[in-house]
């Protein structure tokens, strides 16, 4: 073997044969979450900066209702996905599928709630993205979050299909955990959006 001969460093310490580095999936997802956070920060800043500046048309206080139930559904999906991960580590595939499926159901309910809210805003209050400044900032921030929920749900559903067809094995645990990181991010961004749009902004 003509590689560098010394596996010892100069002090004579043997370099740990189990050279372990962080998982690239986790580091990559962490970096993606930082980038996504930067995007959300700009939309949140645009929202906060423009609170109360909309000069005509419907105002948040007149048309927005607190989506409490919806928030509970989405945030509890962070809990169910943790339970699913634990089941996967214990190799309890049936339990995993149940918790994972429940996570998806909660996400879908959240999206349906948003759809209902938008439907009311558009048909009853006549507020669209082009109506006024409030409409522009509201639909783009909540819509940006909802589009992240949709992307997350597509990936969660893909995993569920793999699990149901038996293609998902315990050795994929880490990949599932990396996906769960994304889902936690989507959930906790909602806390920010909820606070800004429905609490401060109203």
């Amino acid at each position, binding site marked *: 073997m003509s590689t560098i001969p010394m596996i010892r460093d100069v002090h004579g310490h043997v*370099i740990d044969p189990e*050279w372990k*580095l962080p998982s690239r999936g986790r580091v990559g997802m962490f*970096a993606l979450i930082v980038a996504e956070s930067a995007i959300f920060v700009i939309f949140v800043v645009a929202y906060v900066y423009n609170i109360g500046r909309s000069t005509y048309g419907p105002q948040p206080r007149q048309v927005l209702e607190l989506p409490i139930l919806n928030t509970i559904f989405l945030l509890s999906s962070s809990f169910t996905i943790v339970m699913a991960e634990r089941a996967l580590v214990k190799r309890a595939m049936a339990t995993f599928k149940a918790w994972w499926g429940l996570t998806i159901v909660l996400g879908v309910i959240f999206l349906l709630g948003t759809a209902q809210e938008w439907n009311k805003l558009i048909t009853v209050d006549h507020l669209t993205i082009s109506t006024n*400044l409030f409409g522009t900032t509201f639909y783009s921030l909540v819509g940006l979050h909802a589009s992240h929920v949709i992307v997350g749900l597509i990936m969660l559903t893909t995993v569920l299909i793999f699990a149901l067809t038996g293609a998902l094995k315990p050795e994929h645990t880490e990949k599932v955990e990396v996906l769960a990181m994304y889902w936690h991010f989507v959930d906790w961004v909602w806390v920010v959006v909820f606070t800004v749009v429905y609490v401060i902004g109203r």
Partner: protein
Amino acid sequence: MAGSSIPVPGGLGATGVTDAEAEGTWLEVLHSWVVTADHKKLGIMYVLYALFFLAVGGIEALIIRIQLFFPDNHFVSAETFNRMFTMHGTTMIFFVAMPLVFGFGNYLVPLMLGARDMAFPRLNAFSFWMSAFGGLLLYYSFIGGVGLQGAGSAPDVGWWAYSPLTARAFSRGHSTDYWALSLIVSGFGSIGVAINFIATAFCMRCKGMTLFRMPLLPWLYVVMSGLVILAVSPLTAAQVMLTIDRYLGGHFFDTQAGGSALIWAHFFWIFGHPEVYVLVMPAFAIMNEVIPVFSRKAIFGYPAMVAASVAIGFVSLGVWAHHMFTIGMTSIGNAFFVLSTMLVGIPTGIKIFNWIATMWGGKIRYTTAMLFCVGFLLQFLIAGLTGIILSVEPFNLQLHNSYFVIAHFHYVIVGGILFAIFGGIYYWFPKVTGRMLDERLGKWNFWLFVIGFHVCFDVMHVPGVLGMPRSIYTYEADRGWTTLNQIVSVGAAIQGIAIAILVYNIIHSCLKGAVAGPDPWDAWTLEWTTSSPPPPYNFAIEPVVRSRRPLWDLKHPNDPDEPVEEGMSYSGRMPPS
């Protein structure tokens, strides 16, 4: 220096499969490049793509300079002039500088870390093609931008695209849409490649390479990538808002509906200033590798270099509004951005002193690569000093939007970043192609470029001080700017000749250059342990390192580098004691 006689780790030069064996018809070769996920091929494609757009953006610059050669000139119309400087700026930043630094990183980071590829090779390919499509989208506006003005409406809103000029009412047709979409698309590519660099540096290092044994180039690419994900993302968000305004009738930047044109300027410069550091970090990285090798000394003050780079990264995120003093902020706001901008000078000064200290007492070899680096040192220092001058708010109010500002940032980007990149091209060309670039042509390239650069950009400061504003398409004869503008234009032409020599040198040396061997510069980092060009997957056997200069240790087994202190080691390396 002839190729060294040291054994190559893993015996790669002998066992690696070379590209020549894998070649088929030209269609198969083309196909292999299009579908590749190999970091080396992608790196080469990034650089070639950037050099192509360097020529395009350079031609646009020359058109600008011809137009400004005479007062009251009508070489191009005012509309065309606006398009030229918009396209020149956008092209040079997003489709020349960014792909150049990404290309260098793609090629070098895995090799320097002793890794076989980036952390996510397919994401890497995706990122490249996103960047490439971004450039095509921008230039398609020349033929596809059919709006109210007919065919060929390239963007004309300036590379900063201030609102409300970009509103539908003031920017008819689709030219601004091409601009926004092109930057959204290439922005996703930039974010993808930045995530890849971070994951590669943290997760793909070879055995024994703790974070503080990592060469400085990957270190600076980590800082650069952090800036990309924190700075390019806001730009992408702002472009999405602009697109919502233009396509969906939104009101983000519509002042009549209560929106704010000012907030666009903030969002743009929150991206725009860190972007300078995104580009200059890789330039620093090249300096950190080239100067030690040609001074025959290890880099001076490695931990200080890392700390200074990270500090510059953090500080650069809080200086953006120094582009906006004339917009009228509070005096506390102004004072904050004056001071934060001046603060950047401290870590940057540390770096400059460290490079000088590296050269001090060294046995300097003035190869073309080294010449470009020495040019960088002086020019980047001057660029930094005019930057400090411009950070003084009362003074800035006088010079805002003048040619002084143009001269300053071209000093940074051409005199600093492009010089470093050219040095990097001369340094790593033998590794990439297996052949040396011609040194005689290299000297011509360097000296013509230096002369052209100083004739052009030193003189350009003066019309700025005399009051010539940026972005004007012509000026009256009695302003007293004529001679100065003519000198600047001559300097631009000389730089054009220098770049033509570089292109000729690259083509000529690819075909007929002297064979380089694995290690023509007697260097110390892992990329020089492989054959030139490196085989697919780089290392047949994963290297093991125990210092910052593994190849030095190999060449000098009786005089190895000082070991890096254990206190600086990183997870996973816990030696039994």
